[in-house]
Structures are given as C-alpha cells and as structure tokens.
C-alpha cells in the first residue's frame, strides 16, 4: 500500500510505532465533511452526528447546502456537506471553525477555507486523485489551491479515497462517503455496530445488497485509517443521566404534532420546511393522520382551516415565500377565530432569497403580515428539543384562545441534529375528540367573555349551533356588522386574548448577571452561540448578559424592567440591518434588525442591534466581536 500512504505536509508526521497513534484528547471537536453535491457528504455527516449523539456525546450538526441539486462539479459554491460539533458536554451551537475537515476535492476545501470555516491548525484529509488527474486544468487547480492552503497552519493529509474505493466498487463516486465515514469512525472511535445500523436504516428502502456494499466501503475506510493515520481524537463520553433521543428540528416538529394529537397536515413543498412532511408522510398514517399535499401554499392553509373548523386543530408547514402566500388565509383564521397552527421554517429572503439557508427574517411578517389588525401568537423554539414541545404548546394555545399560533423555526434547526431528553408523553397534550353535543340554547358563535375576549367555538355537527363564519367584520352572532361599533368591538375581543395569554407568562430569565453594561437579546436558533459568546465576553471581564425570547407575540412580560438594569440593550439576529458608517447611513435613517424594531416599539428603549445575514448560523466568535463593538463607551 505504498502508493496510498499518507503524505504529511507542514508538520512532521508522528511516527507510527508500536505505541500506536497519538490520541488527541479534547472536551470537544468540530468536524466538517465537504463534497460536490450528490457525493453524499451530507449522509456521511448525518450518520456520524447521529451515532456520536447516540453514543452519548453532545452534538450539534449543521448542513452545508448548495441551492441546486447538481451544481457544477468541483466548484466552491457547489460545496455540500455537514459540520458536526461534538463534545463531552451538551453542545449548543456549531462553534467557530472546524478542527478536522474531510474534503472530496480541493475546491470545496478551498471554499471552506475562504469562508474561514477551518480552525487555524485544522487537520485536513483531502482526496488526492486530483493531483494526478488526466486533465491539465484540474491538476493546475489542485496545485494552485494547495499553494494557498499550504501557506496556512493546516495539517494536510492527502487520502487516496477513490483508489481505495475502486478496490471494492465500480462507482467510487457513490461510495466515497461511506469510506470517509469509516475513516471518521476510526479516528473518533465510534461504535461500529451503531454505524452499521445507521447505514442499514439509511438504505432500508433499497435492496439489501446496497446496504451491504456501503457497509463494506465504510469498513474499508476504517481499516485504511487504522493502517495509515497516526492520530486519533478522543472526545470523552459522559452518559447523560436521563434517556435521550436524537432528532433533527423538522423531525421534532413532526413528532410534536403527533404528540399534540393533531392529525391533519396540509402543505406544499418548500425548502427547508418540506422534510417535516417527508417524515410525517412515513409515519402519520400509523397515527390516523393525513399529510395533504395541496395544489399550492394558499390551498394548504385553506384545507387546514377547513379541517380545523370542522374538528381538531390542523396545521400547515411552510417557509417565507409560502408564508407570504398564506397571508390572506391567516387573516381569515384570525378574523373567524378558527384555531390554526402554522409552522414556518425560516430561510433567507426576500423573494426566493436563500432557499436552503438560515435567516430570521419572517419575524415581522409573522406578526404584522396581515392587512388590518390580526393579533396572533408567535413563538420560536431555540433548540430542537423546544421544536418538539412548542408544537404541543402551540396546539393547546390555538384551541384555548381560538387563534392562529405561528411557530418560527429556521433552516439551522430544521436540518441540525441534537440529542435531548426523551419526552415523557402525556395524553393530556393531545386534542380531545370533537365534542358534538348540542349547543345550549342562547349560546352565540362568538360568545365573547367581555373581559377576556375568550369564547367557546362550536363545530359542524353540533345541533343548535348553526351559524356562518365570515371574514367580514361581525358581531357575536357572526352577523355581518354594519354599525361603527361592531368592528371596534370585534377587534378589541380578538386583541384582548393576547393580553390574557400574556398574563400566563413569566418574565424571561437573564443569562449571566441580572444587571450590567450590555444585555444581548436574541430569539430562535442563535441561543447557544449567543450564550457561548457571552461566556467568552464575561471571561474577558465585560459586563454582558443575554436574554432569549421564545414568545414574540405577545412579547414576554417584564422586558422594560429587565432592560432598565442594563446601560445598553442590543439584539443579535440573523437579519439585515444598516451599519453606521456605511454611506448615507445615519442614526436617523438606519434600518434595524427586526427584533430591534419590535423591542423598541414595545419598550421605548433605544435598542441597538448587531446582525448578519451570511446564510449560515452565527458563530460565537462573530457575536463576540459584535458584543465588543457595542459595549457602551467601549470599543465601537
């Protein structure tokens, strides 16, 4: 195997003597796997992340996704893959940079380098066939890339992936990912039987021989690494005290819907929300549920509203452009007080924007997207665990308050994998079967409690309850209102419900000291990265704390009082905002991040913001720089 022995650049290769490989023992490590789209780096990364979590490591995975199914080969923007950060303790975000990178070609690697995705002394395992490729251009590209990369402090190890794979398969393009998985399994000492199970599970819809061939490739990679690599990485495992499960955010949403007893999901395909329906499509009928793929986003909302109106709360799942299309129907559900759950997996916008990439820019559209006053509950999970539980909560709130509840997740949560304590399912989470008893005489379709605006809804099939819901302004009999006070009263009743709901909430907790110089406010999937940045800032002596919002409408109570204990308040968001110092941008015309607008409006506090829209999760390092720049009287 002389031709395939690793070449080591920059750093001297540790001798592979009887003592075996050097073991790098660390509390956490971040791996990236990047390939051309279609070469399966994602599958490899998913299995690696899943198995790591199952073994008891903390884990957070983030997919690196090009927008196209088959972008040009060996192109930077076409790089596809996965980042997996594993730790001894729970991992709350994807970290700053990768400690180990496996690249299927040097262009994908170069792209990640240019995006500063690699730690300065990262170990790099890169497919070496391009170095000796028949095509002159490709050889030249390899050389140029290696010149750039060689100037860094990376330890680059070319690996004969294809050459090795060819020993067991004719089509290495479709097996390299398993070879790489095997290498990683050896490097990180993963449970090989769990890996085999995961491969079988992954290929369960194909012929058995497919799984077998993939397992063989994985084992080949394992043996190759064992024979040729001089290092291993140990991230010690501490078994968590409670039983855990490992899900991605969209699976958690789907399972949450099941746990909530919902049984109708109406949707239209849209990235990155669709996989909720893929997963539900596989399991939902086992629970008596239906995934209805409607003819468009609008119809999906309409079918969900029709189904909710006639029985248990139904839900629809979408992303930004779909949310825009559903706007009118969400207004109708609000006006008619038909409960509805809308799951919005946010991506970058406006328009088609960044279909596969994360942003938090549906916030204000969710709150204020409807013409007219359309009060609704808007909530946002910060973790995958919360994705699960929040759907359960959303269903209950929708039913109790006869309103629309929107749950905003994002592309980061959707595809990321995290372990979390296995939910102890409770039958009370589930919607009761529809009550078809006669409606007592005299009860009106909107029998609003004048103080709270709450009323009981009745559904078709209940004798004595006949009425016509309408999106027109109406009185408590659901009669179209023609006098000026009818609309005033209807608006008040619908709005009042949010105030009532707010009385059930507690003020949010503050991470860090409850007073200080700067309070960072975030929402959604950025929680872990913000808190890690806050920890680092505090370690540097900065008086910084953070606060994370789960309920955005109505806002959680007590914010103004909490804000008053800090010299400055600023949001951190994956949203666009103008930066002072840019041409034309002044304090007067500066457009802020969406959460900053919202908090200013509600609290009259001069909330600042640090926002970025890189189409990827924020890194703690970046947030730390943001914190430093925003310290009152500080660096700026």
């Amino acid at each position, binding site marked *: 195997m002389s031709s395939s022995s690793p070449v080591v650049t920059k750093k001297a290769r540790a001798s592979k003597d009887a003592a075996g490989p050097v073991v790098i023992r660390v509390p956490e490590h971040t791996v990236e796997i990047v390939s051309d789209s279609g070469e399966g780096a994602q599958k490899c990364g998913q299995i690696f992340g899943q198995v790591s979590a199952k073994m*008891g490591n903390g884990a957070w995975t983030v997919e690196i996704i090009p927008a196209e199914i088959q972008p040009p080969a060996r192109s930077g923007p076409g790089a596809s893959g996965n980042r997996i950060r594993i730790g001894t303790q729970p991992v709350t975000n994807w970290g700053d940079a990768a400690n180990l990178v496996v690249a299927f070609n040097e262009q994908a690697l170069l792209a990640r380098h240019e995006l500063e995705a690699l730690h300065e002394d990262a170990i790099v395992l890169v497919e070496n066939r391009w170095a000796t490729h028949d095509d002159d251009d490709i050889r030249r590209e390899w050389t140029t890339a290696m010149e750039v990369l060689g100037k860094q402090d990376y330890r680059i190890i070319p690996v004969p992936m294809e050459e090795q794979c060819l020993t067991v398969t004719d089509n290495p393009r479709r097996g390299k990912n398993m070879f790489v998985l095997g290498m990683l399994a050896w490097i990180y000492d993963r449970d090989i039987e769990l890996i085999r199970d995961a491969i079988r599970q992954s290929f369960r819809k194909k012929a058995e021989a497919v799984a077998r061939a993939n397992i063989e490739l994985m084992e080949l990679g394992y043996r190759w690494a064992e024979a040729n690599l001089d290092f291993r990485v140990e991230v010690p495992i501490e078994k968590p005290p409670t039983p855990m*499960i490992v899900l991605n955010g969209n699976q958690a949403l789907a399972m949450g819907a099941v746990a909530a007893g919902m*049984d*109708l999901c109406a949707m239209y395909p849209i990235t990155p929300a669709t996989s909720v329906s893929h997963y539900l499509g596989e399991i939902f009928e086992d629970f008596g549920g239906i995934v209805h793929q409607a003819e468009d986003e609008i119809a999906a909302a309409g079918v969900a509203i029709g189904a909710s109106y006639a029985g248990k709360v139904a839900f629809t799942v979408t992303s930004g452009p779909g949310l825009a299309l559903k706007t009118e129907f969400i207004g109708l559900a609000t006006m008619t007080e038909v409960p509805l759950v809308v799951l919005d997996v946010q991506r970058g916008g406006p328009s088609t924007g960044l279909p596969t990439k994360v942003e938090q820019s549906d916030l204000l559209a969710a709150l204020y997207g409807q013409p007219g006053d359309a009060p609704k509950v808007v909530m946002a999970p910060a973790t995958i665990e919360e994705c699960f539980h929040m759907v359960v909560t959303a269903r209950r709130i929708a039913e109790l308050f006869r309103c629309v509840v929107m749950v905003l997740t994002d592309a980061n949560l959707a595809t990321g994998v995290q372990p979390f304590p296995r939910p102890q399912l409770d039958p009370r989470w589930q919607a009761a079967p529809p009550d078809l008893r006669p409606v007592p005489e005299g009860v009106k379709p909107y029998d609003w409690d004048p103080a709270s605006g709450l009323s009981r809804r009745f559904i078709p099939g209940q004798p004595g309850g006949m009425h016509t819901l309408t999106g027109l302004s109406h009185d408590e009999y659901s009669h179209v209102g023609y006098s000026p006070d009818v609309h005033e009263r209807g608006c008040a009743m619908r709005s009042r419900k949010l105030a009532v709901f707010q009385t059930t909430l507690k003020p949010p907790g503050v991470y860090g000291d409850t007073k200080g110089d700067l309070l960072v406010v975030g929402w959604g999937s950025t929680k872990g990265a913000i808190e890690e940045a806050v920890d680092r800032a505090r370690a540097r002596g900065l008086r910084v704390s953070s606060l994370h919002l789960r309920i955005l409408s109505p806002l959680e109570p007590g914010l103004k009082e909490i804000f008053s204990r800090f010299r400055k308040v600023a949001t951190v968001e994956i949203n666009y905002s103008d930066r002072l110092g840019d041409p034309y941008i002044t304090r007067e015309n500066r457009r802020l991040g969406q959460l900053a607008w919202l908090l200013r409006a509600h609290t009259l506090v001069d909330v600042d913001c640090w926002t970025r829209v890189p189409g990827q999760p924020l890194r703690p390092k970046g947030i730390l720089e943001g914190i430093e720049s925003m310290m009152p009287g500080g660096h700026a």
Partner: protein
Amino acid sequence: METSCSFLSCDHDDDERSWTMEDYAGAIPRWCPGCGDHAILAAVERLLETEQLPPERTVFVSGIGCSSRFPHYLTTYGFHGIHGRALPIATGVKLRRPDLHVFAVMGDGDCCSIGAGHWIHAVRYNVDMVALMLDNGIYGLTKNQTSPTTPQGHPSNTQPKGSHLMPLNPLSATLGVSNASFVAQTADWMPAHVYATIAAAFRHRGFSFVRILQRCPQYTDDLFQEAVRNPNLVEMLVHPDGVDAPELEKIFKNRRVHDPKDLDMGRHLAEPFDRIRLGIFFRDESRQRYEELRHQRIHTAQERIDRLNEEFEKYAV
C-alpha cells in the same frame, strides 16, 4: 375503540325531527331585486327540505362575491371565506368530516379567475361535495368588472370598449380535468331545472360541478335576455340518467338525448353552440374520491403514545 365512525354514529336515520323550508332560511337576502341568486337559493332550500338534511350536518362554504353571501341566508353551518378559496376550505371540511354534507358556492370570478387553480385541483381530488358556480359573467359586488366568462365585446368598467378576450368555457375546462366525475349546467330562470340539477349533483358521490347561468339585472341583464324570452335558444340534454324536470318539456322543445356516461360527447356538447345547453354533460360514479383514499381510523390518545414511543426507540441514545 373509538373510530372515525363515531362521527357517523350520530346517525340521523332514526331522527324524528323534520324540517320545513323555513327552518333552513337564514338572514334576509340582500341581493338586488331580480338577481338570479334568489331563485337558486330557493332551489337549494327546496333540496335541503326534500332531502331532510339535518341543518347541523350541512355546511355551505363560499368565497367572496355577490353569490358568496349564500351561507348567510341559510340556517346551516356556513363558512363565508375569502375570494377564490371556497374549495380548499370545503376540501378541508370534508377531508376531516366525511359525515357532513358539504356545498361550495362560488361566483365566476371566484371560481374561474382568482380561484382557478383550486377549481382544477378540486375536480381532480373529486371530494364528495356539491360545487355551485353562479355565473353571471361579471364582477357584481365590486361594481361591474370583466370576468373570465364575460362575453367578448361586453363592456365593463375595466374594459369599457368591451371585453378583449374570448370567454373561458367553464364546462370544457372542467371536463378536461382528469378524474372529473360530474359536470352539469342549469339556468336560474327555470327553477325546476335548477332544482333537478342540484338534486342530481347532491346524489352524485364525488365532486359535482354545476354551472348555473345567473342573471345580473345590474350589469349583464342583456346576457341571457334572449334565451329567457325564447325557449328555442335553449337545448335540453335529456336521458333517463340525466336531469328529470318533466314540467319543462312543454316549454323547451329542443331536446337532445345525451348519455352522461359519454365523456367524449359531453366534451363535444360543451363547446360553444348557438343554443344554451342545459343538463348533465358527464357523470361517472366510479371515479376515486380523495377523502375515501385518505380515510384514516381515528386513534386513541394511548394508541398514539404507544406508537410514538416506538418511534422514539429508533432515535434513542
């Protein structure tokens, strides 16, 4: 064990209640005097009475437009929705509650313009409901704008020199959709035929599309004037399996035998012709119905928990 039949178990066969037409009446209609919608409402009330449909198990869903005020004028469950979107709501109702009698009432703008996508797909889903398209060839509620079925040359506020385009043919369009199962046309000025047509639509198991030619005295009173005055301008499609309105035989002499099973002939007859054709163009009871294909047993809370716990096992650490 609880099943979806729990809905159906509220079986009204032994229901001793009975309903008169007045029981089905709702608010006093605010349509213009002379509007064809009044006659259609009366025919629908007659159908409800004849079939003795329990008002609480009957749902009228509508969009927006003059005709979409329909549910307000009945005492059943009703959902007056948004423009063009009656069909998705009605589909959701029937999908969730196959035990309910579902009617969707739309106008021509509602169905053939802003809601055209839903219309095409509702035909394909073939969910059991009666879809009434009240076609007056104009936008009335918004005061006289051209609709997809406005005849070419007919002036409106948006196209004052006359409608630029050939009108869309709702019958041909519906008959062109795969899985279409019931397509009929009737006209508001012959209530017996309206009644007989919607009765046939109601009895059909599937998506029954009925286009009802409807006079608008405000904006399109010329549209059907000649046909109203001159029965020779009407051709009745008749068949033992078609619409049965014997009282009309004496007035409408143009009768053409058409077997509703014959799709090709139905399509042919739906094409523009110098007479207005009324009757059933196509009917097929054997087409698959979406709500049946998707029917699920209702599971108990405990069944769900057990099954979800099994699912958790696959993802357990």
